[in-house]
Structures are given as C-alpha cells and as structure tokens.
C-alpha cells in the first residue's frame, strides 16, 4: 500500500534505539496524526516497530511502578499478591514486545527513567489506575493500525489483559470497572504520550 521510503524507514529505526523518553517524544513528532496518510511513506515494518516500541515504553512504566510498589511497605496480603501478579504480567509483556521488535528488524526502545509519587498506598494505586486504563486505551487505539499479523496477535492478547488489570485497580479504588460504559474508548498516541511523559524523568 505504501511505497518504501528509505529515509522514513531509517529515521524510525534509528529512533527506536533512543532512550525511552526521547523515543516517546520522537514518536509524538514522528507519528503525526494517527490517520493512514499515503503522503507519509513509511515501511510497514518500521510503522509496526514504532507502535510496538510505544507499547513497550508504556509496559516499562507499569512494570517499574509495580516494582517500586512492592519495594514499599504499603502493600500486604491480597493487594501485595495483586501487585506481584501485575508485575509478572508486565514483565512478560516487555519480553514479548521486545522479541516482536527483534523479529521486525527494529531496535527496542530503552527503558525510560520513571518518576512516580510513591508517598502512599493510595497515590501508588491512583498512578496504577491511570497507567492501566491509559494502556488499555492505547492498545485499543493501535490495534487497527498494526500491519503484521504476528504483532496483531500479540497486541490483542495483551490488550484484554491490560483491561483486566485496569478493572482490578478501578475496583480497588471504588471506581467503575467500565469507566466509558459498554464500549471502551481508544486513545491516540497524541492523547497518550503527554500523560505518559508525566511519569518520565527528564
């Protein structure tokens, strides 16, 4: 569908080795609108690498949050078990997305330097609630844009798990498990990246 544009492909692939924060910032600039734009000649694999690296960056943030939550004294009993489960899942997501990028011939984004307010149990839960719901919306926004079948299969398998995670955190905070009702709302990179940036140290 798109002509191969060597310049764009090189640009995306070189971005993918950048630090997490730089990669996310570059993605915001490089992805432009989420509409399919034939003017923007991007190699299919490079486009998928950009999407997967975007997902990878979000997973890195979630993983780091749960690691720090477990390091804190705030979580015991069943909540601690939940944090452990979530951390384990996010680690598996990181591994799978990293492998997917390798298969596409791209370079995985580096782990961003995360910054979280870890002052209390509620602060941590609220951050987790934000990130998981954001992540679910982000995956939903990207699923129709993914070209490679294998990448799509991985994204779908992760998307519904992120939704389960989000529901668990919503319930813990006495919020709706379905905050947008019967139909989940997708979020674009333009909507997600500024929020993700809040949790990345410069």
């Amino acid at each position, binding site marked *: 569908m798109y002509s191969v544009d060597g310049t764009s492909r090189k640009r995306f692939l070189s971005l993918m080795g950048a630090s997490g924060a730089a990669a996310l910032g570059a993605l915001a600039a490089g992805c432009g609108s989420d509409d399919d734009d034939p003017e923007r000649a991007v190699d299919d694999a490079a486009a998928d690498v950009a999407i997967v690296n975007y997902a990878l960056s979000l997973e890195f943030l979630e993983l780091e949050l749960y690691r720090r939550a477990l390091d804190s004294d705030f979580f015991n009993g069943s909540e601690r078990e*939940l944090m452990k489960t979530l951390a*384990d899942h996010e680690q598996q997501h990181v591994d799978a997305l990293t492998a997917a990028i390798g298969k596409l011939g791209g370079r995985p984004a580096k782990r961003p330097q995360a910054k979280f307010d870890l002052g209390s149990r509620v602060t941590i839960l609220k951050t987790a609630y934000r990130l998981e719901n954001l992540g679910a919306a982000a995956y*939903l926004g990207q699923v*129709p844009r993914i070209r490679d079948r294998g990448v799509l*299969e991985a994204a779908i398998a992760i*998307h519904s798990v992120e939704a389960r*995670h989000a529901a668990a955190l919503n319930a813990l905070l006495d919020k709706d498990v379905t905050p947008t009702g*019967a*139909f989940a709302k997708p979020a674009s990179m333009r909507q997600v990246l500024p929020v993700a940036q809040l949790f990345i140290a410069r």
Partner: protein
Amino acid sequence: MSRGVEAAVEVRAMTRSAFVLRGALAAGAAFGSATAAPFVRGALAQAGGGDVAVLNFALMLEYLETELYERAGRLALSSDVARLARELGAQEAEHVAALRAAVRQLGGRPERTPAFTFPMSDEKRFLSLAQSVEDVGVYAYNGAILALRSKELLGAAAGIGQVEARHAAAIRLARGMTVAPRAFDKTMTERQVRDAVRPLLED
C-alpha cells in the same frame, strides 16, 4: 466481596438508537471521524461477507450473556451480586443492539437469539458460570478481531472485547479469584467457542 465491585459498573440509561449510535461512534472515534457515517461507508467498503458472519457470531455470544444475566436476576442473589448482574447485563444488551445494527448496516441479517439453558441454581453457580462465559467471550472477541477484514469493524470489536475483559475481571473479583489467569489472553476460533458454549444451547 470487594466493596469496589458494588460501585464498579456505571449504568447509563440510553434509548436504543443512542446505543446504536454510540456503538458506531465508538468505532468511528478510532479513526478520527466525528460521525457514524464514515464508519458505515468505510466498513461497507472494506468488509467482506465474512465480516457479517463474524459479527453475527459475536451477536450470538452477546445474546447468551444478556440472557445469562437476565436469568441470574431471578435467583436469590446478594444485593452486590444482583447489582453486578443487572449492570453487566445492561451492557451486554447494548452490545446486542450495536452488533445487530452493524450487521444491518453491512446489508446482512442479524441472527435471532438461540434458546439457552443455564445450569445455575444459586449465586455460587451463577458466578462460576458467568466467569467461564465472560472469559470465553474475551477469547472469542480476540479471535473475532483477527478474523475481521474491515479495520473499522476490528476497532469496534476490540472496543467491545475490552469491556468483556473488564466484565470478566469484575466477576472474578466477586469470586475472590485472580483477575487475569495469564499474562496473555487466549484467542479462540469460532469452532472452539461454539464447542465451549454448546452445553448452554438448548436443542
């Protein structure tokens, strides 16, 4: 049972046409279109006949879930679980309406609801059955997403599938179970889903 579950699901009272439009808008929003019309045009342009079949299959599952929650309401349930059944059931009914409308918009005919039989005499059995049904629903939507040709419909199906995953989590929380059994949710083919739900279809 977690207090959070009671307050968990927000019910929005909407007219039927609003359900349909909302469903179409939910799909349209993924592509930046502000109205349902581009979604319909886009979907018609891209969808093969296969897409109608996929949507009709998803519709069958939504009929099943709607009926499950409706019948659960007639059991002796705690107030928390009764409320959960009502609220999840209301959302499944919205899914039915949206899928029926989508099938019609594609020029297809929405299938009628099959007759179902649910072996559940009490709250415990209802919740156990609901968990299986919702989990299968997640796996079915994951399969449907892969089977759809139209990108717009894929986005719409994923938007419903995400909500099914949230439902599955809510039921699991009500049972004190882990919300996500695995880091990656399975994908089921239509055949696998039909096999899984066959015991619930009345012959």
